[in-house]
């Protein structure tokens, strides 16, 4: 009975969330609309990282590499070499390129474990950081590049929508985020997703049952990289610029922070984490110039006292409720 009630409560909350999210741009506050777009893009980034961190048990500290790479694919195709800026070509290209490189890097890094994995993923992200920082042919410069414009959306002569309008872009990003959430919930229920969670719990046991653990991890690493690339692609469009800092380890750390804030290994953890993180950033930076200091203090307090993330607050309240009234 309690399960049924909490299930509907959860569904009502989710439905309400989507209604509010869909209605939000109608307020016409462009500044806040763009902020929510940023939150949704970061949610996509965090969810893609969660596939590794929360579900496969791989702590990647180089996820920003894929984020930045996806952004740079669009910048190179659309601005630097001006081959095409068509959405239907550049978005798949960004995801394919990041998928390809995360597959290659995965072949190396997945041979390592634990601390080594953390540091090796960081090191590979640094390689990409320096490539986009130093190589002229990849638009290398510490200032990055300003983009020529938003992607065009024509399919033949037909133009279904224009990404130049903030609201249209909002709904486009929202659609992708919802799509990713659906994809994730299906993936996690599939035999493949179950196997990943099995690997998280006990890799050796999965190996001895006969699962090809390395291939499963490689597949997860590749999928996760592709979606991070998608997030980076969207972020480049939002800012109309790309920058090597998108590949920096601060960006990777931000992704990990969002998951710790929201709660990892939970479908909604990434979304809640991205919301909390960006809200925290905005609030702190309006109150004080030294907002990094307070961000640092907040991170330490959360790690020490709330390791389960914001989602665990709900569980804690429920537990207190249960103890008191049943």
């Amino acid at each position, binding site marked *: 009975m309690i399960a049924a009630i909490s299930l509907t409560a959860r569904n009502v909350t989710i439905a309400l969330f989507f209604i509010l999210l869909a209605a939000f741009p109608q307020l016409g506050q462009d500044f806040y609309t763009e902020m929510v777009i940023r939150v949704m893009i970061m949610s996509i980034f965090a969810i893609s990282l969660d596939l590794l961190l929360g579900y496969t048990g791989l702590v990647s500290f180089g996820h920003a590499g894929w984020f930045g790479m996806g952004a740079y694919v669009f910048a190179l195709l659309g601005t630097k070499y001006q081959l095409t800026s068509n959405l239907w070509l550049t978005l798949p290209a960004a995801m394919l390129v990041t998928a390809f490189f995360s597959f290659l890097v995965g072949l190396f890094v997945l041979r390592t474990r634990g601390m080594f994995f953390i540091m090796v993923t960081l090191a590979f992200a640094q390689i990409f950081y320096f490539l986009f920082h130093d190589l002229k042919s990849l638009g290398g410069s510490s200032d990055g590049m300003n983009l020529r414009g938003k992607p065009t959306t024509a399919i033949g002569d037909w133009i279904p929508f224009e990404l130049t309008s903030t609201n249209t872009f909002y709904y486009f990003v929202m659609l992708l985020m919802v799509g990713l959430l659906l994809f994730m919930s299906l993936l996690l229920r599939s035999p493949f997703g179950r196997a990943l969670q099995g690997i998280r719990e006990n890799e050796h046991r999965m190996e001895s049952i006969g699962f090809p653990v390395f291939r499963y991890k490689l597949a997860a690493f590749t999928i996760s990289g592709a979606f991070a690339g998608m997030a980076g692609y969207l972020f480049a469009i939002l800012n109309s610029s790309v920058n090597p800092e998108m590949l920096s380890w601060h960006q990777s750390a931000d992704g990990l922070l969002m998951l*710790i804030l929201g709660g990892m290994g939970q479908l909604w953890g990434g979304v809640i984490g991205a919301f909390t993180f960006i809200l925290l950033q905005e609030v702190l930076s309006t109150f004080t110039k030294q907002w990094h200091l307070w961000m640092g203090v907040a991170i330490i307090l959360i790690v020490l006292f709330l390791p389960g993330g914001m989602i665990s607050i709900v569980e804690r309240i429920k537990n207190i409720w249960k103890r008191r009234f049943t």
Partner: protein
Amino acid sequence: MDLILIQTLNAVQYGLLLFLVASGLTLIFGVMGVINLAHGSFYMMGAYLAFTITSMTGNLLITIVLGTIISALIGAVLEWAFFSHLYHRNHLQQVLLTYGLILIFEELRSLLVGDEVYSVKIPSWLDFSVPLGSVMTYPVYRLFMSGICLVVAVCLYFFIQRTLVGAHIRAGASNRAMVQILGINIDRVFRLVFSLGVALAAFAGMINAPSATVSPAMGTQVLIVSFVVVIVGGIGSVWGALLASLLVAFADTFGKVYLPDYSGIAIYVVMAAILIWRPEGIFKS
């Protein structure tokens, strides 16, 4: 030929400096099992200490002695306040907590000494160059740095290999539970290792300050390179760290000369190559 000689001297000097930072990092990893992202901040702290104390005393040697003691004390306090809570936490929590510490250190630095780039004066008795080959000269301070770093590395070797406390540290790195059962106070060993690591990193920052600039980004740069050193050398292995420091320094220095476009990635390519050969570093612990 002279160019190669000069670059070799530079590489050795850079490698030894890197070793001072990375040896602390690898000991903290190996003995305490903690990933310390804030290690680069201690290097930065050393450089800023050098700047602050020399502007008061005007003497680099006094500065280094005083600065090393101060940083060892700061290390002990930090271990007590933060790191001692991390031993039973998972890697992710360690990464995040120490990342939070970086943000705090960087902001405190900005509040206390500002964001400007500073320089520290080379003491006058070391501020000259010696001829090298027929046309080139080489600054004596850099040779002095290499010498001092080498002395510290040898002292570290004797401390770890030849003293009782060193034996405790080595034992702690290989089997923590057994050390405790034998009645050794492992908490004290941890605190010692941590403040030793902080002191080494800060010492490196101080000794390097006169020959480079003191700038806000220096902590992050050295941190990531030290990570590469620790991976290549093998976690917890001080000798691996020495070998890997020199390897990384040579790759970086000669990469800058011969492949300037790709110099940023040279050390990571070396790392990838080593990891294919030995996935747990050269000296697996």
